[in-house]
């Protein structure tokens, strides 16, 4: 493994340095039919799950085949995507914000061969490489975070929980039988790189044990004031600790009842790890949306306070999600998003229909806004 220089000279880092050039310009990547008709589209239609046609004023059409993709992708997989795009799409493709891959062709005859090609490609264990779907009143790809693959604060894995969930919800990825679209999102700790807080169903990794403190090392590893300042509930105080060998060291103490397990201290200070095999697990949230269609955007609400991490397939979590989806599919009106349905029937009915236990953990007690989430009317259901 001989080192090969790119041309960069570490002794003269500024020599011929190129910076601040930004991304490549979007229009150099447009397929010709997109470049020609941009801004002049008339309407679109979903011909079958995952297959869309957009029709332009010029009469031109672009057919899009949307495929689910893992957010984690190897270069071998990307090269296979490129091979398909070269074969069918004149070397163009795009990705959606939800990690789907979109192959576009400019005539209807090109759709069927592309579709057959995509569906014929399977992985070693039989999984589809390019499942077609994720459109209309169905479930689209689950956006997610890094999890145990590549992050220091997760309370669960991201890719694994998503794979397990999408295997269970697969029929609704390739179909459009639901009352409205249903977006599922996953974030592996409450920092929510994945910003799952406005999803129809959100899978969230959560810690439940306060940080452990590495007293012997904390003053050497961390800026203690930064760790203290990082705590949103002011639960961390400076303290002096006597080690077993009698040596007194500067450290911190955590007011445990005030800890909300966010891990901000750990982000600032590696001597305060939270991760725990039984403490960590899954929170399920439901009823959020970002669209302004019919009703305003909404936050997701916590509907299951904790489900243990059950590797590798998280069966309790996927069963619970499936139960929520089925109750919604059965009971909601056409066009009603999950949160709109829950609000119409009332959350008391939601818990009943989804067969979810309501525990004290689900009643908000975090700061002022909590008060306004308690029932303040005599209108409720028995």
């Amino acid at each position, binding site marked *: 493994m001989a080192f090969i220089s790119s041309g960069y000279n570490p002794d003269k880092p500024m020599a011929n340095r190129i910076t601040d050039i930004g991304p490549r310009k979007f229009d150099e990547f447009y397929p010709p039919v997109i470049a020609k008709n941009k801004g002049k589209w008339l309407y679109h239609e979903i011909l079958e799950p995952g297959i869309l046609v957009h029709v332009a004023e010029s009469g031109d059409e672009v057919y899009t085949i949307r495929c689910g993709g893992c*957010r984690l992708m190897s270069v071998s997989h*990307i090269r296979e995507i490129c091979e398909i795009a070269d074969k069918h799409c004149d070397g163009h493709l795009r990705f959606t914000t939800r990690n789907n891959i979109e192959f576009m062709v400019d005539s209807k005859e090109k759709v069927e061969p592309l579709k057959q090609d995509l569906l014929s490609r399977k992985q070693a264990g039989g999984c589809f490489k390019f499942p077609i779907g994720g459109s209309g009143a169905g479930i689209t790809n689950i956006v997610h975070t890094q999890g145990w693959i590549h992050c220091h604060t997760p309370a669960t*894995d991201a890719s694994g929980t998503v794979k397990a969930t999408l295997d269970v919800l697969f029929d609704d990825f390739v179909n*459009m039988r639901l009352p409205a679209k249903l977006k599922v999102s996953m974030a592996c700790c409450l920092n929510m790189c994945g910003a799952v807080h406005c999803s129809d169903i959100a899978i969230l990794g959560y810690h439940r044990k306060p940080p452990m403190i590495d007293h012997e090392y904390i003053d050497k590893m961390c800026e203690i004031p930064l760790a203290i300042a990082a705590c949103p509930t002011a639960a961390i105080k400076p303290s002096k600790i006597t080690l077993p060998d009698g040596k007194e060291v500067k450290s911190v103490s955590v007011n445990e009842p005030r800890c909300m397990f966010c891990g901000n201290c750990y982000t600032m200070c590696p001597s305060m790890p939270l991760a725990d095999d039984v403490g960590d697990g899954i929170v399920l949230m439901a009823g959020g949306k970002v*669209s302004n269609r019919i009703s305003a955007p909404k936050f997701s609400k916590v509907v299951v306070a904790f489900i243990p991490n059950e590797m590798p397939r998280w069966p309790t979590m996927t069963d619970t999600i499936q139960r929520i989806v089925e109750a919604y599919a059965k009971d909601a009106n056409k066009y009603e998003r999950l949160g709109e349905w829950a609000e119409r029937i009332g959350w008391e009915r939601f818990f009943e229909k989804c067969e979810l236990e309501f525990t004290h953990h689900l009643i908000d007690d975090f700061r002022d806004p909590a008060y306004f989430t308690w029932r303040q009317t005599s209108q409720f259901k028995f």
Partner: protein
Amino acid sequence: MAKHETPLLDQLETGPWPSFVSDIKREAESREKNEKNVEYQIPQDCCDDLLGVLELSYKHGRTHWKHGGIVGVFGYGGGVIGRYCDQPEMFPGVAHFHTMRVSQPAGKFYTTKYLEDICDLWERRGSGLTNMHGSTGDIIFLGTTTVQLEEVFWELGHNLNQDLGGSGSNLRTPSDCVGAARCEWACFDTQAICHDLTNEYQDELHRPAFPYKFKFKFDGCPNCCVASIARSDLAFVGTWRDDIKIDQEAVKAYVGGELPPNGGAHAGRDWGPFDIKKEVIDLCPTGCMKYEDGKLEINTPECTRCMHCICVMPRALRIGDDRGCSIFAGAKAPILDGAQMGSLIVPFIKVEEPYDEIKETVIEPIWDWWMEEGKNRERLGELMKRQGFQKLLEVTGFKPDPRMVQEPRTNPYIFWKEDEVEGGFDRDINEFRKYHQR
């Protein structure tokens, strides 16, 4: 032959959905065979070791990655996230395994030529594993060694005309929806402004000068496909001010069942024949529509442009022509003080190149305020909460508008300013006492 046994991960190789485990194994095998004689610049078995460390996490129920540490490329304060394994002896291939964020093109359209170039670079100088794409929108290069960071950056800039994205207390890489490129509902060209602002603010994107992260997202219409209103400190959401354009013949065709409602989005179930009253008129949140004698009418001033009718009858109804965007400030995920939705600060603004009005009257005054007043790790929305909406109006000079609130305040505790009250606050107690005994 796999380097590590992975009995738990192996169970994620069945079922219909694509398996990330199978994909990593595929890359591990490809690196082991190395049929193209790639001169790997990081350990050839890094994908094997990644599977190994992930299997260990599945066994332990805990992550095995340590903190970042300070790594990066010279002169930039973002774009690289340091990552070290906490079991480097067991998994030397991923002992140092840093992430690089690569600024994605607006709209995420690609040519295969570009992607192949990216793959060649990342196969040689990194793990060959990516995220397409990360949560904020960047292309993510997953895993390389410290010494390769400058090399990757050099090749990106010199050979691919491509820069890194944002991380840390910077402007994060802006992102947008497919927009006018392939959607009839785009009220402005999301890609054009996304690209323009990304380039205009390269310094803010690469060199941390902010209290915390800052995100721009651009949604072409109120359907908000990139979730701007929930996720970005400044959300640009397309809208229009004039009439929804109605094709009465097409409306009749929907009513007559000749056109599939919702663009076919509900085709997976028999919902019965399309009923315009039940499905459109009665669901309109403002009740501004009526359908009488075969004619659809929309009372435009009462319409709040929720998109429902347009989504249900895309061939009959089209967005208006007087287009622009609304701007919402302060959205963020729950950390630290609870989730916040963006609040409307600009009901309508035209989105036209070179976007001077947006830059000079919205973005820059808000940044000046936030950089002056924001505490360490305080998002814009938290500063808004701490100092109040009025302060935001003061720094931008926008006029208060009832559109900016859900409802007026329910308490009368108004912080009147001295110059708002006739005569000011300075009064003579002795003059007062002439008429009011002690």
